[in-house]
């Protein structure tokens, strides 16, 4: 079982257009209440199904990225029996080759958040985990990254460095230049600590980044935060999760 975490425009989606919609549950976790998770089953003979969660709310963008309870959501995904999380996120393009509406599957991350707890053990869970033995590792699951890239069947940039900022304010041009100097390709506010929390619970994690705009100071006025972002991303997520 896979859990799909929806980001930009997930709150606009009519899920019944994509799958048979089952029950919706909100879990009480040691870290607070999760967002609603909805059981989605594809039409036809396929037996696989997914638990879908919209991070920022339903119907409208009701919670900005820095106030999403990622601890509760990741915990809930595991409690629901999921082995992995596939997520989508809107990002600003930093790399000059990227354009609005491009898709990117990041393979590395720079964490410039400054108020977020990156572990469950720091949140008084009462359930101590072993310290990770690895001192250095790539944050995303290569297995799920490859499945995502292969199943999408569209042109996707297959590696990128995602820089995660605190938000909710957007970035200054100086910050974007600094991130570029450090190697970042895209910027968003979502993936940390979500990816670390998933790893701590032993869940696979891969992300599909949808370029919604060009990052500050790099020119370009085109922006796309519309419903089609969520529709395209959910279609790809379901193709991947149901393989």
């Amino acid at each position, binding site marked *: 079982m896979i859990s799909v975490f929806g980001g930009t425009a997930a709150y606009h989606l009519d899920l019944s257009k994509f799958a048979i919609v089952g029950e919706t549950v909100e879990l009480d976790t040691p870290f607070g209440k999760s967002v609603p998770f909805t059981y989605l089953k594809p039409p036809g003979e396929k037996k696989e199904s997914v638990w879908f969660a919209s991070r*920022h*709310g339903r119907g*409208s*963008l*009701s*919670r*900005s990225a*820095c*106030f999403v309870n990622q601890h509760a959501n990741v915990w809930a995904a595991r409690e629901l029996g999921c082995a992995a999380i596939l997520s989508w996120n809107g990002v600003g393009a930093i790399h000059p080759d990227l354009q609005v509406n491009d898709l990117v599957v990041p393979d590395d991350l720079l964490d410039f958040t*400054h*108020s977020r707890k990156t572990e469950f053990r720091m949140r008084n869970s009462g359930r101590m985990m072993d310290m990770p033995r690895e001192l250095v590792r790539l944050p995303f699951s290569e297995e799920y990254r490859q499945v995502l890239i292969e199943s999408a069947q569209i042109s996707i940039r297959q590696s990128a460095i995602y820089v995660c900022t*605190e*938000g*909710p*304010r*957007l*970035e*200054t*041009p*100086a*910050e974007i*230049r*600094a991130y570029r*100097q*450090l190697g970042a390709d895209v910027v968003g506010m979502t993936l940390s600590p979500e990816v670390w929390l998933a790893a701590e619970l032993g869940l696979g994690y891969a992300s599909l980044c949808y370029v919604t705009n060009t990052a*500050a*100071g790099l020119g370009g006025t085109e922006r796309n935060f519309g419903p089609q972002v969520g529709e395209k991303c959910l279609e790809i997520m379901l193709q991947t999760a149901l393989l």
Partner: protein
Amino acid sequence: MNILAAIFTDAIIPGEESSTPFGDVTIQSEQWGVSKVAIIGAASDPRARVVTAKELGAAHVIGVGRAIALGEKLAIGDLVLPADALDFTRDISTTFFENRGLGYVQQSPPFCIETTTALQTALGAQVQPVEVVAAGPKRPFTPAELRAWNTLGAEIAMRGLAPEWYLCHELEIGYAALGMVAWRKDEQASEVPDWHSLLAPVVAALPAEHSWQGSNFAARNALGDDWHEWIIPG
């Protein structure tokens, strides 16, 4: 009292106590020429002084403080006017819109153009424009941090700019920063800047309106035009 501008200093100052939903602040109210200004000291929650400035009717905030020169070109005592910023503050409230889907405020540029232009016009050759300021945390900065920030493009480092500049933007107050170089390569200034005499002509040059006014469309659409509704916790 309806003021034109508030001055945010990086120090705790004596003055009149004022309470806000985000804690207390200290204010010195003064008449500068034809304009009223309020000097607001450092607060434990930066939202307290931004709300105070808004409540007093400030259209502009000028954040003043001691600056650290990160490169070679600036000298002790130089006045500096940054155009862009890197934010290295930590564990501090970054928005009035906690737990809501608001606060995605553009930061390009981070500082209000009209407020910055008034500073530039009034101070003329006294002030040196710098491209980027590193807004650091309240604690002392380390030499390694200063080198790293310089590598990333910052020419000066200051305290007390962030999150104030973007909190002001959330409440549609124009914000600009003015620093005086007080530290350079282990050399520290002994004199305290006389902000009053420096800023009096600046306040006289401030326009009553600026481009940040009405810029928080998302908050206006979701919560209405009364900013008091914006700061109620979500």
